[in-house]
Each structure stands twice: as C-alpha cells, then as structure tokens.
C-alpha cells in the first residue's frame, strides 16, 4: 500500500529532473559551446593564413604584449597584497573587531561595483585634470591613459579574489600551529614560511589562477582608464571591441580565439589547483 505513492512521486521527480537536466544542457550549449564554436569557425573562416595575418598585425601584437604585462604585474601585486591583507584581516589582533568587520565588507566592494564605475573612480581621482593626476604627470609618469592606470583598474577588479581564497583557509587552520612554532623558538618570518605558507599555498595558487583569468578578460574598467589608444594602451579585449566596431569580424574572431584558448587552459589549471587544495572546499 505504502509503496505505490512513493514510486509515483519518484517517477514524477525523475521526469521533472530530466526536464531540469535538459534545460541546463540547453543553456550550457547555447551560452558556452555555440559561441565558442562560432569563434573557432569565424577565426578559420578565411583560412589559417588570414588568422595569422590578423594576429600579426602590429596593433594585435602590441595588444598581446600589453595584456601580458598587465596580467603579470597585476598578479604579482595582487598576490603580495592579497596575502598580506588576508593575514591582517584574520590574524590582526591589533585591529579592533569592528574595524576588521568594516574592512572585511569593503573588500567585496569590487564584486558589487561595476568595473566601469571602478575605472571611472580612478579617472576622478587620478585623471589629468586632478591634482594627483597632474602631480604624477609632471613627474613623467601619467597614470590615466597609461600603463599604471590600467594596472590600478585591473587590481581594483581582482582585489577580492586572492583574499577570499586565503582568508577562509587561515581561519580554518587557526592560530595554534603558529603559536606552537613560536613556543619552539620560531619568529614570525620563519613561522610564516615553515608553518603558515604550506597550509595556504594551494589557496594562493588558486587565487593566482583566478586573478590571471580575471585580468586577462577585464574590459570595462580598463577601457575607461586606458582610453583604448592603439599601439599604446590597447589590450586584447579592447582590440576585439574595436575590431568588432570596425566590422573587422574575422580579425576580432582571431584575437578572441587566443583569449579563449588561454581561458580554457586556465580552467584546466584551476581544476588541478582545486583538487590539490584537497580538504578545503568552496562556497562559490
């Protein structure tokens, strides 16, 4: 008697779960696979030679160089500041808990604020018409419409990624291992390298991969700050934007393909880093 309704509901749930799976696959194919295939087809549409021609344009080579530079500098800076900020947030007993809570919520600001607005804030602060902007300009190092501004804008966007990877790990391992090290005679630098670092290094690796991926693909903030000047401040993403704008779809597809290949490689590295992180699982 009691088995009948159970089978009925399970049958019902299996049909509804089939529908859900179907929807998921359709969305996946529609949003990810078809555009990706489109990029590949578009890039090879006029033959391999035109693909290389598009990529070997001076402005394309320059854009790749700029993107690579931004990624390297931003990743280095973000790793350093991210680790320091995370340690300060979790371990910083010298800060009152209220200050730490405030900082903690401020760190997520770039997640909430549109990258374009982030770029705009840098413009308002360091643009050529402002006091600070003029100051740096006079020193011969303009910030906005130049490389430092692009690094700043990308840093703004990627800032939470590293901290949000490391802070939970630090929280989880607690302070006892570090205290044990100090009872055994290790000062803070030794304690960090011998005790803290081995625990957080896979979190840092994951954070680095996320940062590289994010800075590689950043568009809005960089567009506002860089001014998208060809052969000067143009990155790969803003070049794709300009190519599309000029109806040079084949060239846009070629550059987009390079970006897509980088992203897929990063995705694989990310999976590997995630597995190495082992015990530590994630909410996002």
């Amino acid at each position, binding site marked *: 008697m009691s088995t009948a309704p159970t089978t009925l509901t399970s049958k019902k749930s299996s049909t509804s779960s089939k529908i859900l799976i179907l929807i998921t696959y359709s969305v996946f194919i529609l949003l990810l696979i078809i555009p990706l295939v489109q990029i590949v087809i578009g890039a090879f549409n006029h033959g391999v030679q035109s693909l290389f021609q598009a990529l070997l344009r001076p402005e394309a080579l320059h854009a790749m160089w700029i993107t690579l530079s931004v990624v390297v500098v931003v990743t280095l800076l973000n790793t350093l500041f991210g680790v320091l900020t995370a340690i300060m947030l979790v371990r910083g007993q010298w800060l009152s808990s209220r200050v730490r809570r405030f900082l903690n919520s401020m760190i997520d600001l770039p997640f909430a604020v549109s990258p374009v607005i982030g770029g705009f804030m840098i413009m308002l602060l360091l643009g050529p018409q402002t006091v600070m902007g003029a100051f740096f300009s006079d020193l011969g190092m303009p910030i906005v419409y130049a490389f430092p501004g692009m690094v700043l804008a990308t840093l703004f966007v990627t800032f939470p990624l590293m901290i949000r990877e490391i802070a939970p790990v630090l929280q989880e391992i607690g302070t006892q*291992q570090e205290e044990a*090290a100090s009872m*055994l005679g*290790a000062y803070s630098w030794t304690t960090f390298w011998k005790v803290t670092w081995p625990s957080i290094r896979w979190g840092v690796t994951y954070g680095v991969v996320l940062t590289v991926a994010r800075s590689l693909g950043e568009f809005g903030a960089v567009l506002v700050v860089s001014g998208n000047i060809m052969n000067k401040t143009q990155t790969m993403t803003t070049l794709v934007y300009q190519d599309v704008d000029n109806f040079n779809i084949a060239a846009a597809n070629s550059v987009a393909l390079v970006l897509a290949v980088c992203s897929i490689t990063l995705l694989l590295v990310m999976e590997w880093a995630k597995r190495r992180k082992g015990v530590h699982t994630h909410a996002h």
Partner: protein
Amino acid sequence: MHIEVRDLNKWFGQYHAVRDVNFSIETGQLIGLLGPSGGGKTSVLRMLAGLEYPDSGEILFHGKVMNDVPPQERGIGFVFQHYALFKHMTVYDNIAFGLTIQKWPKARIRARVAELLELTGLSGVEKRYPHQLSGGQRQRVAFARALAPEPQLLLLDEPFAAIDAKIRKELRSWLKSLIERVGITSIFVTHDQDEAIEVADEIMIIQQGTVEQKGTPWDIYKSPRTPFVAEFIGESTLLESIGQLKGFGQVPAQSNTKVLIRPEYIEVGQPGELKLASASENGIVKAMHFRGSEWMIEVAVGDLLLKTYRSLESPVLHIGETVQVLIHRVYVFDGDSHSVVENTLKEDPMPIMI
C-alpha cells in the same frame, strides 16, 4: 624551574578573566590547574607561556621578571589542547622543528629525535603524517615535540581532553611517569578532577579568575577552604542546614552557613546492618546508579536528598526501601571559617563494658 606569579590580572574587553592571582611553584613539581571551563586556567597558562600579555602583575622564572620576554626565548615546552601538530610535516620533522630552529647540528638532531621517539614509544611511525596517527599517538608527538629542545618548564593545556576515555587513563599514568623520569617542572590545565587528583603533585583550584586553594590533592580533599572547593572535589551534597539530623543538633542554622556532606561520609544499610543504630536516621532509597565498581545511591532523609556509595558485596537495596542512614561527619562553612563536625552520637556517652 622556580616560578613565581604576583598579582596577575588579565582583562578581555570588559571580562576580568584573571584576578589578582598569586602563586609559586618549586622546581620539578607537577601542578594541576583545576577548575570549571571559562574559569581562567588557560589564560594563566598562556600568560606563563608568553602567548598572552598580562594587564598587570609579574611573572618570574628563577627570580627574573619574564613579562617582556617573548615566547620564543622563554624556554618553555607547550602542549596544545588539540596538539597543533604541523600537519604538512612528518612525525620526525614535527619533533625536530624546535631543534632545526635553534640550528642544532644534523647528527645531534637525529640522535635527539630518536631518543624522544624511543621515550614516547613512537619508534616506527616517524615517517607518518599527523592525519595518519591515532589520537593517543598525536598526543605523544605533541609531547615529544615540546620536550625536544630540552625546556625547563612544560605547560599542557587540557592534554587529555580530545582522547577517548579508555586511552586517557593509560596516557595519564604514562604522562605522570614520563614527567617524573624527565624531571621537568610541569603545569597542566584540566577541568577533570579525577585527572588532577591522579596526576598532579599539587592542585590549584581556579574559579572565576581567582585561585581558590592550592595544595596536595589529599590536603584539598581533607580540608577544603571554601564551599566551592569542597563541592568541586568529590560528589558532595550541599545543604543549607543539618540541625534536624541526629547527632548534628549542635550545628546552628544561620543564613550564611553551608553544610557539605561527602558520599563517603554516609553509610546506608538495611535495618540491623549498621552497628550504630542509635546515631542513624531512617531514609528511603530514591535512586540507584550502578557505577561499575560500586552503587551510587540517592537516599531521602526527611526532605534532604543525600548521595552515598555502597559496596557491591553488601546486600542489594531496592528503590522505595526504608534504610538506616548513618552520617559520620559533615563540613560546615560559616562565612570565612570552616570546620569538620563529627556525629556526636557516634561517641556512646554511656559505654557498657563487658
């Protein structure tokens, strides 16, 4: 190491965790800090270690003020409650950590680690990682790691709390004999009175940030100085007055008087079983708890509920049965003074000589 603590105070925000604590410890002693959770025991221990900074007061080792000496230079071994082993290091590397930091020569480190592995019975597991060890083994590694740099003082924070009951008893006696063999001054924190009584040379009872009493386990059992101590050691019953009981008519019932009876001071028996029938009360058995090696019996005398033990050799009592209850002695706490009051009827005023 000779340790002295003077007027130690510690606040955590508004919370006064340690209040005017004073004590001194002789070299080579094994001291148990005993008290309820949140009583400030661990704070005292962490201040001795240098992991916490006292708000006022002084900590002296061998007569030297240590307040501003960082934990790295205090020469103290610390065993953490959850061991805090370095989980990415092998047992060998864990034990060798302190020696590597102090830049001992490699050969000497190897010899010292081998010696400690032998001493703690861990030989053969030195290549394993902490997550591959049992709770008891982890505890031994933590212990070996703390002892490796030859500290003068060993501090242990709830060393047995995370181990299951059976192994805990083994480890307790193992730890006591090991500390005796090494001859190191040691202080451990516990909330378990059996543990403190069994292991420690001297117990310090700490409650609400103050030291209630310091002494040997026997002294503390025999003459507790406060009702708290008397209640904390043993399974006592605390009563407001006892004047209505036979043999204790002389105890005045005042507002601030507290009377405490230990189970071992009470005898129960079926009618005719007890020798001093004239000094006994009648009671009704309310509950019986089997304790493995004895019965714990709750018996109601009038409106008082008393606890006592009964040997498994004696006839078995039943709930609801009327029994004779003989109270040998009680503790009376009267404000600041305390005394032991014997049952007056036990001394027969008219002995009959045969």
